[in-house]
């Protein structure tokens, strides 16, 4: 794993909104086929980091980005083709978003946007994504009903199915479990363990135990800086190098 070239390489990344800094020169590598957990208190820059990786930071006009981010060696910040970039990097937002379309169209939205219109290709794709997101059995008989009418947990799995529909190589999840119940959370966690076979997963979470359960490596971000990044076992043990990391994972602050 270590010898491999990193999937995503972030170097000296600094982001500020107006005069307010969100990230202060952060560097980290994301390896292929790992689950990288990112933990840290609110307002520490975790979401900003994800927005830079898939370039949706572009839509925040006050944001200034410095540093370099590469995806398989290619510059993320300079690429002209952000739409292809975003298809390679799936994103799941904290609150479930069912688009006001049918369940089928929710999942078929991204492939259609990429130009796939043939039902013969779309049908198996939609089924596969819904199955991967552990939602297929619950919705297979009502694919034409509205995605917005599903329950919160189902909508979150629908969001994941949509993020899988453009066959990303990296899947970023931003605190996916804050709006859903513990049972659904456990189901999605199982889903992620399976998805790891096919892709790299970046898991931003405010539940440190979730990172402990799932992540291969864990990064602790605090106040716009990377405090520590190591194997998850290390971060959650006395071997953690930084006192703040120990305090945070033990619930002393944050």
């Amino acid at each position: 794993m270590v010898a491999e070239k990193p999937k995503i390489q972030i170097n000296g990344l600094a982001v500020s909104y107006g005069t307010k800094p969100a990230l202060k020169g952060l560097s980290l590598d994301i390896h292929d086929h790992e689950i990288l957990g990112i933990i840290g208190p609110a307002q520490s820059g975790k979401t900003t980091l994800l927005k830079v990786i898939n370039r949706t930071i572009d839509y925040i006009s006050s944001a200034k980005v410095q540093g370099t981010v590469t995806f398989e060696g290619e510059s993320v910040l300079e690429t002209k083709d952000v739409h292809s970039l975003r298809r390679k990097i799936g994103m799941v937002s904290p609150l479930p978003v069912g688009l006001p379309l049918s369940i089928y169209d929710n999942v078929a939205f991204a492939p259609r946007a990429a130009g796939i219109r043939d039902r013969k290709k779309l049908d198996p794709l939609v089924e596969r994504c819904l199955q991967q997101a552990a939602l297929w059995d619950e919705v297979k008989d009502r694919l034409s009903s509205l995605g917005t009418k599903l329950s919160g947990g189902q909508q979150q799995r629908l969001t994941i199915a949509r993020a899988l529909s453009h066959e990303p190589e990296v899947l970023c999840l931003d605190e996916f479990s804050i709006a859903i119940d513990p049972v659904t959370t456990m189901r999605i966690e199982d889903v992620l363990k399976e998805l790891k076979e096919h892709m790299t997963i970046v898991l931003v979470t405010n539940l440190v135990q979730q990172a402990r359960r799932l992540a291969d490596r864990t990064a602790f971000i605090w106040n716009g800086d990377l405090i520590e990044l190591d194997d998850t076992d290390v971060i959650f043990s006395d071997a953690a190098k930084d006192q703040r990391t120990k305090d945070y994972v033990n619930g002393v602050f944050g």
Partner: protein
Amino acid sequence: MFEETPHIRQKLRVETTAKSLFLLMTVFIIIPLVLIVTYMIYKASPVLSLDFLLSKPIRGMRDGGIWPAFLGTLYLVLMSLCIAAPVGVMAAIYLNEYAKDNWLTRTVNLAVINLAGVPSIVHALFGLGAFVIFAGIGRSILAAALTLAVMTLPVIITSTKESLAAVPMSFREACWNVGATRWQTIRGIVLPNSVSGMLTGFILEVSRAAGETAPIMFTGAVFYKAIQEGDLFAYGLLDQCMALSMHLFTISTQVPDVPEALPYATAVVLLSTVLAVNALSIGLRVYIRSRKKW
């Protein structure tokens, strides 16, 4: 436990007073509306008939119907809507979906709002200068419709922008996250869910365009024009035309000895035309709302 204290009695009294006051004001605005409409219909009843609508004025506007004016208003309203709606909707999409939030955008937004407050006579002079004289269109339905379109653009832009802004931001972000372009997002999610707000803008445009006299008086409406009775295509684009609002103005103020019922009947037709268009859009809106998706 639930005994009445003076404080609770006081609270209930205030509650009742507030409610009655608001109800009273609502009744106050309904009364004049009902009075105006019933009085108008009562006064108009001697001449109001299908024949009145479909025939042309005779004996120097003192008798006959209002067909040329009715048809002229239809032409003006529909044409100005056809011009203002696409331009306004597209401008609103740019301002709400694409434009960065900077001082220039804010200035443009402010200018649009202020433009809505410009008196119609100023728009009339602009239309006269820009379309009739400078563009060389001459006094015509086209020039008048263009003037009405300019006058009603701010209304359409503002209401369209509001309806676009009402679509939750999270929908857009979800679309961007899966690699959709801005246009794919707008086309697939934003527009289908903001149609009902846009229709509100169109209703307002129609009401204003049908009712205004000043902008068309200088740019294309005339006192009298003879056209084929009952023919829907009697006017050409570059013809001058009669219009209901203008007709109402002239027979009420410029022509002596007009029977009292005529202006009232004209007003009833004008009001009914606007109401009919509004009813259509309101029906559409109710239908769209019933299919609201979140």
